[in-house]
């Protein structure tokens, strides 16, 4: 039983890393949102599985929160924002998929190299989980760095947060309160970001971050 439970947890956490890679090369906005919903769905599954094998009912709540908010509410909201902004047909130029993939692979290697020695004494399940979670966080950051579009930045941030929840679920004894507060903070961030996107759009007629830079005052160098 233990072997199978471990393998499934491993599979689900690994799938999150794979989905993170999928996020990295999506150049259309709707596709990006779909993949993000998939990312959150896998997260919900992974957390739910953790709840099952750790026998920790509060993790089911976390899984439900992930499912409802991150896989359904947030992508839907972003869908509506994108439609109202009228940017669903814009293609984002993703500079060099190969480059991003290579960088992502390096980050995953780095995450494993960092985590495995540090957690040498921990439960093997938590070790793998933490390594994957760090990889998801790093890939989310990479997504935020390589993209120009504000929507992509938001997605990057959310996927990064998914990685944090994965880490929290993997470590035993994390109180539910933390996860709820994290989830709500993300929700609030979404609202704030949504408002900001509209404000930015009104001001600059674009949500492309590069376009915005030309408006900045006093640029030196």
């Amino acid at each position: 039983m233990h072997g199978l439970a471990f393998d499934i947890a491993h599979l689900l956490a690994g799938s999150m890393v794979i989905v993170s890679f999928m996020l990295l090369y999506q150049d259309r906005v709707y596709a990006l949102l779909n993949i993000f919903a998939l990312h959150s769905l896998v997260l919900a599954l992974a957390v739910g599985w953790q709840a099952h094998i750790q026998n920790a009912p509060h993790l089911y709540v976390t899984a439900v929160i992930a499912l409802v908010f991150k896989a359904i509410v947030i992508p839907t909201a972003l869908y509506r924002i994108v439609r109202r902004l009228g940017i669903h047909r814009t293609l984002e130029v993703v500079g060099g998929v190969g480059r991003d993939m290579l960088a992502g692979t390096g980050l995953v290697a780095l995450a494993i190299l960092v985590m495995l020695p540090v957690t040498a004494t921990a439960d093997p399940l938590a070790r793998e989980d933490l390594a994957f979670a760090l990889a998801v966080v790093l890939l989310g950051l990479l997504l935020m760095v390589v993209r120009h579009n504000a929507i992509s930045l938001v997605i990057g941030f959310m996927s990064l947060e998914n990685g944090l929840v994965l880490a929290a679920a993997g470590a035993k004894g994390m109180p539910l309160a933390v996860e709820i507060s994290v989830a709500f903070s993300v929700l609030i961030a979404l609202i704030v970001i949504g408002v900001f996107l509209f404000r930015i759009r009104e001001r600059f007629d674009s949500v492309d971050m590069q376009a915005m830079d030309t408006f900045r005052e006093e640029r030196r160098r």
Partner: protein
Amino acid sequence: MTLPLLLALPMVLLAVGVYAVIAARPPHGSRQVYSVALAVSTVALIAALAYLASGQAPETLRLPIGLPWLGAHFRLDPLAAFFLIVVNLGSAVASLFALGYGQHETAPERVLPFYPAFLAGMNLVLLADDAFAFLFAWEFMSLSSWALVMAHHQDPANTRAGYLYLVMACFGTLALLLTFGLLAGPDGGYNFDAIRAGQITPGLAALVLALALIGAGSKAGLVPLHVWLPLAHPAAPSHVSALMSGVMTKVAVYGFIRIIFDLLGEPVAWWWGGMVLALGGITAVLGVLYALMQHDLKRLLAYHTVENIGIIFIGLGLALAFQGNQMYASAALALTAALFHVLNHSLFKSLLFLGTGAVLTATGERDMEHLGGLIHPMPYTALAFLIGAAAISALPPLNGFVSEWLTFQAILLSPELPQWLLKFLAPAVGALLALSAALAAACFVKAFGITFLGRPRSPVAAQAKETDRYSLTAMFILAGLCVVAGILPGLVVDGLGPVVGSLNGSVQLTTQHNQPWLTLVPIVDVKSTYNGLLVMLFMAISGTLAALLIHRLASNKVRRGPAWDCGFPDASPATQYTAGSFAQPIRRVFGSVVFQARERVTMPPPGDLRPAKLEVRMRDPVWEIGYAPIATAVVALSSRFNYLQYLTIRRYLGLVFGALVLLLLGMVLWR
């Protein structure tokens, strides 16, 4: 039960500060605030005196405030009690002075709230018994005095002084923070008792010494950390200048003594003393040389503070050198000299600043070149200032002479030190001390002569009026104490006995008050003695006799005749000796080397109506070598990195990301 009282008094002061913010309106507000400050300081002074005289054991108290696991510890021991006497004596007299002087304050709402807070901060520093309470009170003292420096912030020079003060105070506190961090060790025993009990390695102890020198020295004004002091002290109102120069620098000396002599325990290496000694000697001479070049009375006094801090540190350095060689009897003499000078300097420096304040009120001028002849309209101020000037110039029978004489006695014991370097260094520092004493005398001949003698150099000086009675009382209290401490030094030395004993392995000077004729016998009477009382009696009797003889045998009338005008009838006051001309020979001798002083005479050709000009240009070596490069480097670096302020969001994210990846990589490679 003195300690709870002494802790309650600063709280009263803080409450008065709050009251001053809310309710105080001039003119009654300033009178109320200063009256309470006077009462509180007097009570604290009496309590501390009673504690020191009774010779009780140290009192400790722990209050459940501050850091939750530490609390706030307070302790009253002889060292703290002595400095409490110095602080509260200065505060009481300054408050008395301010009862009159404060009426002329143009911005009382900027002074009244911070003045009691400043007094409270200084009291709390002395009572603190853990690193947190100490640093908190220290910063409180620094910030409230900074606010007082900025009281007249309309003047851009004051703003600059305040800025420099703030930077140096932060730097000093950082050094002290590191000092306590090193002393507390990895276990974090920030309680002073834990620090005393702990042991640290000689290397760390040397680091503690260096950091304490930087931290306390920057507040006290040790060269080369003195640059803020001559700017900031004069910028404050005069009674606050008196406190900052006369008292706050002593709190800094207290910090140094507490850390090095008390917390660190026995000095580990003999060269510690040599280092402090050399710094003290350089500080003394440079301070007085700077002072000689000044024509601004308050700034001149501030530079003299630097000089006197140097003298105090000479005593402390000798004490460290002697202690490092287990020569406790000699160390007791050096420590006594240093602490005696702490008391003396607080007396006469406060007196001189208050006298300057009186001159400032009467004329609105601080520049000596615009003063002159003030002895006629302000005879009492002139007398008090003269006593202070004679005391700071170390003339017997006043108090300045006694402490410098004791310092010299300690220097004369230095040949007994086993290290050759110290054997050579101590006499050299003695020469520096003698030089600085002589230059100080010259400087105060200038300060008194140009300000009070001669003829008025400006209309304001001609129309000056004597200052009010409160101010005069305050000045004469201090002048009287200068005389008393000078003619009865044995009593002061006996009072310092327990303080010295507590820092010096229970070795102190022999009891002085039962010596015949109140003679001061620091070592043994075949070696050296000094009797201030006899000196004063001799001076009084011979002076009276000479006056009587002249009046009896010559004429007993005061005759007024025309002043010798060198053949130029109706000479203008501008033909008098000026401060600049008085200092010129000394500037030629020392200034051309130390300050790169260059004179340039511009003589217009015949027929040209422009006046001839004599310009003197001086450069400050400490600023140019020590500070200007740092300032330039900071500006260069920050303009180099200025573009970081204008990056895109992605660049910022990229920076965060890159830093994270780099740190993770470092972690991987490190393991």
